[in-house]
C-alpha cells in the first residue's frame, strides 16, 4: 500500500459560532494528485491554511511525512518539504524572477546567517533556481523584476518557487484563479508535467482543470468531505451532484 504523505485526522476549526472545518479527515497518498473542490464558502482556503501552517486547527492532528506537524508554524513545515502557492499571488515584487526562486533554494541550502559573500553570485543557488524556472517554462524571464510579470507568469513563478523548495508535497491553492483562457491552458499543461513526479494537493474552481489533472477528488461542503474518489466516481456521486455540481452537471 502506498504511504500517506499527508494525513489529516479529525481536524476542526471554527470562527466564532461557525464551524469552517468540521471533523475533517483526509489521506493524501504519495505520488497522487489530489484535488479538493467545493462551493464558495466550503472552507477550502481555511483547510489549505491549516495544512500549510498559516492557521492552527482547534482540534485534531495533522501528520506530514510521518511526523505530527500540528503545532509547527509555516516556516518549519516548509523546511520539512511542504511547499504552497497562494490563492492571491504572493511573490517578491521588487526581486528578479531568478532571485525569487533562488531564495527558495537558499532556504534549504545551508544557513542564511551568512553576512559577507554576495548571495546573487552563488552559482549553485542560481543553477537550481534556473532548473525550477525551466520546468515551468519561464526561464527566459529570469532577469526581470517579478512585479513586472503578467498575472499568468506570476502564477507560474509561484509554482517554480514551490518546486525549488524540493517539496514532498505541493499545495496549490487555486493556481488558475484570475488567469485567462490561454494562461489557464499553459498552467494546466505545466501542472500536467509535474503530475506523478510530485505529490500534489490541488484546490481549484476550474472543473475542467480538476478533471484533467486529478487522480482523486475530494468534495468539501460546509467543512466536511462528503465524497472522495476518482474524478469519474465523484462526478457520478448523487450526494455531490445534489450539493455541489447542481442538476446541470
Amino acid at each position, binding site marked *: 500500500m502506498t504511504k500517506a504523505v499527508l494525513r489529516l485526522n479529525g481536524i476542526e476549526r471554527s470562527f466564532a459560532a461557525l464551524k469552517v472545518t468540521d471533523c475533517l479527515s483526509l489521506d493524501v497518498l504519495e505520488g497522487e494528485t489530489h484535488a479538493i473542490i467545493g462551493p464558495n464558502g466550503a472552507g477550502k482556503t481555511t483547510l489549505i491554511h491549516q495544512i500549510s501552517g498559516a492557521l492552527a486547527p482547534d482540534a485534531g492532528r495533522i501528520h506530514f511525512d510521518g511526523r505530527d506537524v500540528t503545532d509547527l508554524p509555516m516556516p518549519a513545515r516548509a523546511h520539512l518539504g511542504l511547499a504552497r502557492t497562494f490563492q492571491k499571488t504572493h511573490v517578491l515584487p521588487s526581486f528578479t524572477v531568478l532571485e525569487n526562486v533562488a531564495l527558495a533554494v537558499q*532556504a534549504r541550502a545551508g544557513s542564511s546567517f551568512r553576512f559577507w559573500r554576495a548571495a546573487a553570485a552563488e552559482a549553485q543557488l542560481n543553477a537550481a533556481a534556473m532548473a525550477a524556472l525551466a520546468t515551468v517554462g519561464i526561464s527566459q524571464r529570469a532577469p526581470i523584476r517579478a512585479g513586472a510579470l503578467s498575472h499568468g507568469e506570476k502564477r507560474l513563478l509561484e509554482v517554480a518557487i514551490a518546486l525549488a*523548495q524540493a517539496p514532498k508535497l505541493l499545495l496549490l491553492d487555486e493556481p488558475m484563479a484570475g488567469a485567462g483562457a490561454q494562461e489557464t491552458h499553459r498552467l494546466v499543461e505545466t501542472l500536467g508535467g509535474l503530475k506523478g513526479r510530485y505529490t500534489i494537493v490541488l484546490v481549484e474552481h476550474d472543473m475542467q482543470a480538476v478533471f484533467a489533472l486529478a487522480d482523486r477528488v475530494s468534495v468539501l461542503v460546509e467543512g466536511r468531505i462528503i465524497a472522495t474518489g476518482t474524478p469519474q466516481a465523484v462526478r457520478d456521486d448523487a450526494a455531490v451532484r445534489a450539493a455541489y455540481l447542481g442538476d446541470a452537471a
Partner: protein
Amino acid sequence: MLASVRIAGLAAAQWQALAFEERLATGLFLPLALLPVAAQVLGGYLLVIGERAMILGIAALSLQFLIGVAGLISFGHAAFLGIGAYAAGILASHGYGTLALALPAAILSCALFALLTGSIAVRTRGVYFIMITLAFGQMAFFVATSLAPYGGDDGLTWPSRTLAFGTRVLKTETVFYYVALASLGGVYVLMGRLVGSRFGRVLRGLTDNERRMEAIGFAPYPYRLAAYVMAGATCGLAGFLLGNEVEFVSPAYMHWQRSGELILMVLLGGSGTRYGPIVGAIVYLLLEESLARFTEHWKVILGPLLVVLVLFGRGGIAGIVERWRLGELSLVTLWAASTTAARTQRERVMRGLRRAEAMGAGVLDRTIPRAKASAAAFAARWRQCTMSVGEAVVSLVLSVERSISTAIARWRRR
C-alpha cells in the same frame, strides 16, 4: 605641465570606467578625504562639522539598514548613540579610557541593549514598532538622567579622548577626522556586503513580502532581531566617536528628538540607498549650520523645509539623483510626481476609511468569518497605510514640536 595633463586624462579615463555606485562613493568620499586640506585654508571649524557629519552619517547609515533594508522604522535609535558614548565615557572616568577597552565596551553594550529591547520590539511591526522603540529610547534617556555618579542631567565630561595604543594621538584633530572617515568607510563597505549577502537578501525579502518568505521557510523573527542588534552595535560605534569628538556625553544624546533627527536624515537622503543617509546627515548639518547663520529663528524654517523635502522629494535626495540618472527629472515631471504621490496617499487613506465604514455598516448582515476575513484584510491594508503615513506623521510631529518649542522658548525669554 604635460605630466599633470596626463594624470588628469588618466583620472578621467578611470572615472569613465567606474560603475554608477562606485562613482557615487568616490564623489562622496573623495571630498570628505580632502576636507582637511580645505580646512587648512578656510578654518578649522570645517573639520569639526565634517567630523560630526560623518559620525552622524554612521548612525544614519545603521538606521537606514533598519528602515530601508529590514523595514523596521525605529524611533529610538539615538539611544544607541548615548549608550555607546556613556559606555566609553564611564570607562574613561574610571581611568580605563583606552581604545582596546572603550570601543568594544561601547559596541557590546549597544549590542546587548539591542538584543534585550529588540527581542520584544521586533515582534511588532509598523506603528507598534515605532512606539515601542520610542518607549525603549526614552527609557534609556531617563536612566541616563538618573545616573547621578556620572553627571545625571548635566552629563558626563570625559577626562580626555580615548587613548589609542597608549598615546594621545586621537587628540590631534586631523587624526581624529581620518579615524571618523575610516570608520564611515568601513561601515559603508560592511553595510554594502551585508545587504547583498544571504542574510541581507532574506531581510529584503521579508520587507518585500513576509507571507511569501514564511511559505518558503524563513521565520522573520531571528533575522529581524539580528538586523536590529547589528544596527544597534554599529550605532554604538557612532556613539563612541561622538563622545570622543566633544569629550562629553549627556542624556540629550538619547532624547527622542535626536532619534527623530536620525530618521529625518535617512528620509532626507533616501532610505533605499547606502549613500543617501550619509548625504542626508551632511545636508541636515549644513542646513542647520547655514540657517542658524541667517537667522536665529532657524528652526522655524528648517522644520517645514524638511517636511516639504521628505513629503514631496520621493525617495529623498537619492531618489532625485536616481530620477536624474534615468532622465526622468525635469521641473514638470517633478511637480507631476509630487502631486500624484500626494493623491495616491490620500486615496489610500480614503479607501481605508470607506472600507471601515462599509465594514461597520455591514458587519451584522454578514456571516462572522467573512467579516473576520475582511477585517483582517482591512487591518493588513491599514498597516501598510500607516507605515508610510507613519513616516510622514513622524516628520510632521517632529518639526511642529520643534518649531513650537523654539517659539515658546523665545517668547519666555522676552
